[in-house]
């Protein structure tokens, strides 16, 4: 573990560039600043892109009055929301209510500590990077449950209960699909995984990408799994009682999670900062936006699943497929070590299609009436 000392770059990796501010604290300080700026600007950017993008999907224009092309819309939103009255429900649990947004927000920022923006340009190149991401990212759920509990509102509590059930279930296929990536790359460090992707892993691991994308959508509560703030059912879900700055934090969490998941998918499956011609950082940014585009494309297209169907989808569909994917990847890694990647790509694509079509013919959602 590298936390204890200055970053060690080992193997053939290049050393810290000489123009970095020297030493341990300088590096940390710089990257904390970079991460904060990166996350906050990207959240603003995402909000703008999503609102404009969804408006286009819906044959509308979208925000265009505030600043050029409505670019300042998120800024105006942020200023307004931050300066609104902050209400704490009289019968709520005040401490929990106050702590919840903080608990939800901090882990999201922590994820970015191990995401490489460039070759070696990351806060801490942990050799257990992926495990760290998985461990930290699920902590947000605690904040969400605290919000649901502390509000003393039935809708909030329903949303919070849904959140716990959903995140716990989807963690498993998420991790299993990651293991296949680790098998291919031979390392848990995110930077090493990017370096191992001469071919983006989405081509070698199409099924893994599929599972990871869906599970990640569920983890960050995006449609079709946006049960915990399902507007047509439980009003605003866990943050029904939140206003002002604390609501702003939850809003921020929602989009920061989207940034985090987009960044991780870009790193794990789309070969991160690697790419021709453009500088690596720009490549990384482009891929992040591409993944986010996919996420909100899904959001504006598909209806929502029901809570038991979401569970069934995780346990009966994604989990078996994730196991099969892991098995197939393991066999391929052993058997086809020296084989050119191109046949593997086509074989894997074919396997994915066969598995998804085959399994979905066994697996049917629907029904679900309970006798009372």
């Amino acid at each position, binding site marked *: 573990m590298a936390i204890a000392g200055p970053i060690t770059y080992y193997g053939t990796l290049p050393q810290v560039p000489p123009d970095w501010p020297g030493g341990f604290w300088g590096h940390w300080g710089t990257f904390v600043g970079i991460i904060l700026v990166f996350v906050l600007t990207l959240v603003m950017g995402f909000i703008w892109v999503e609102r404009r993008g*969804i408006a286009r999907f*819906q044959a509308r224009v979208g925000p265009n009055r505030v600043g050029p092309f409505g670019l300042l819309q998120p800024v105006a939103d942020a200023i307004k929301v931050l300066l609104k009255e902050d209400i704490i429900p009289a019968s709520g649990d005040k401490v929990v209510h106050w702590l919840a947004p903080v608990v939800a927000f901090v882990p999201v920022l922590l994820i970015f500590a191990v995401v490489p923006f460039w070759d070696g340009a990351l806060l801490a190149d942990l050799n257990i990077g992926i495990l760290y991401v998985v461990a930290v990212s699920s902590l947000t759920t605690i904040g969400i449950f605290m919000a649901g509990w502390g509000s003393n509102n039935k809708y909030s509590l329903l949303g919070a209960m849904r959140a716990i059930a959903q995140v716990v279930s989807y963690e498993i296929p998420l991790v299993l699909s990651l293991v296949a990536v680790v098998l291919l790359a031979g390392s848990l460090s995110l930077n090493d995984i990017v370096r191992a992707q001469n071919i983006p892993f989405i081509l070698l691991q199409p099924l893994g990408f599929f599972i990871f994308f869906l599970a990640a959508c569920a983890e960050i509560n995006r449609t079709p799994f*946006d049960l915990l703030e399902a507007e047509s059912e439980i009003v605003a879900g866990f943050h029904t009682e939140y206003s002002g700055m604390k609501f702003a934090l939850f809003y921020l969490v929602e989009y920061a999670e989207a940034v985090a998941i987009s960044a991780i998918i870009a790193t794990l499956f789309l070969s991160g900062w690697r790419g021709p011609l453009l500088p690596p950082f720009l490549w990384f940014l482009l891929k992040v936006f591409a993944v986010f585009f996919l996420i909100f494309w899904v959001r504006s297209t*598909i*209806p929502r699943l029901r809570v038991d*169907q979401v569970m069934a989808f995780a346990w009966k569909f994604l989990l078996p497929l994730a196991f099969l994917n892991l098995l197939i990847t393991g066999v391929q890694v052993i058997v086809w070590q020296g084989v050119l990647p191109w046949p593997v790509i086509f074989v894997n694509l074919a396997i994915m299609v066969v598995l998804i079509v085959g399994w979905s013919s066994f697996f049917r959602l*629907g029904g679900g009436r*309970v*006798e009372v």
Partner: protein
Amino acid sequence: MVLKAEPFVVNLGPVHPSTHGVFRLRATLDGEVVVNIEPVIGYLHRGIEKLAEGRTYTQNIPFTDRLDYLASMSNNLAYCLAVEKLAGITVPERGDYLRVIMAELQRLASHLIAVGAFLNDCGAFMTPILYMLREREKILDHFEMVSGQRLTYAYMRIGGVSQDIPEEFLPALGKFVAGMPGYIDEYDGLIKENEIFLARTKGVGILPKDLAINISASGPVLRASGVKWDIRKADPYSVYDRFEFDIPTGTAGDCYDRYRVRVEEMRQSVRILQQAMAQIPKGKVRTEIPLTFRPPVGEAYGHVEAPKGELGFYLVSDGSIAPYRFHCRAPSLINLTALRDMMIGWKVADAIIIFGSIDICMGEVDR
């Protein structure tokens, strides 16, 4: 260990994003499962029936606009039919055709909203309803052309319609009618085979045939349960007996069937519109009657197949210029009767979409 758990009561509404107005469901939940439902209504009770007793027959037409504000033309038609029955007034042929054209356009507009709002309840983020509203705007343009209003038209009058259509109406309508089947196919194609939509709606909220008849359900709710009952065929009014169209019915009576019936009805409405445009004769659009008139003592019941179901007006006259009793048989209210049977045992999310699939309009439920 036995954990103590007890059902808890959640108020869905009266202000809730998907109760289509100010409807309130007092739901008792066991976890996510609905164990009891009690609909509470009356939050939009405006006393139209009482107010109408103090207005003349003609002055009451605007009140009917505001009953089911998504289908004002159909309401006007039902009320005018009842008054004409009461006073023995006949309508010129062109007036009848115009009424049919407006009623069918209104059915299209209302079903577009119904389908869009239903998908919104299923959790599709605004996209379907915005596309449906785009088509509805085109229909509203036509209404605006004839009546100058976008929502509350008061276009039909006792003895016909208020004025003849402008010259450019029929060509514009022809263009719209030619394009509409394509749009219906496109939207239906996007929705009907969506796996999530099927999983959410197939087999959910079943209303059996016997129960549907027993609770006096009407309109798409009744037909989705497999009862072939449409006032336009069963008791033809206006000039509906001159058109060829089918009555779409469902088999299971679930939310999916109700959706299918609505989409099929939209196709049939386009068919009727095509025929009506081809057949419409020249001539007067309205029998001239004074604005204030005294129908003979008696009573009359006029009913039409409104988009939401059988809409009827029961009028009692005491020979004065105002109705002695003005009663509206509101399909939205009566279709809600079986809500409890349909919802119990399902999850909260299902309760929302079952409610959405009935397609009610609060203005008509509470009146």
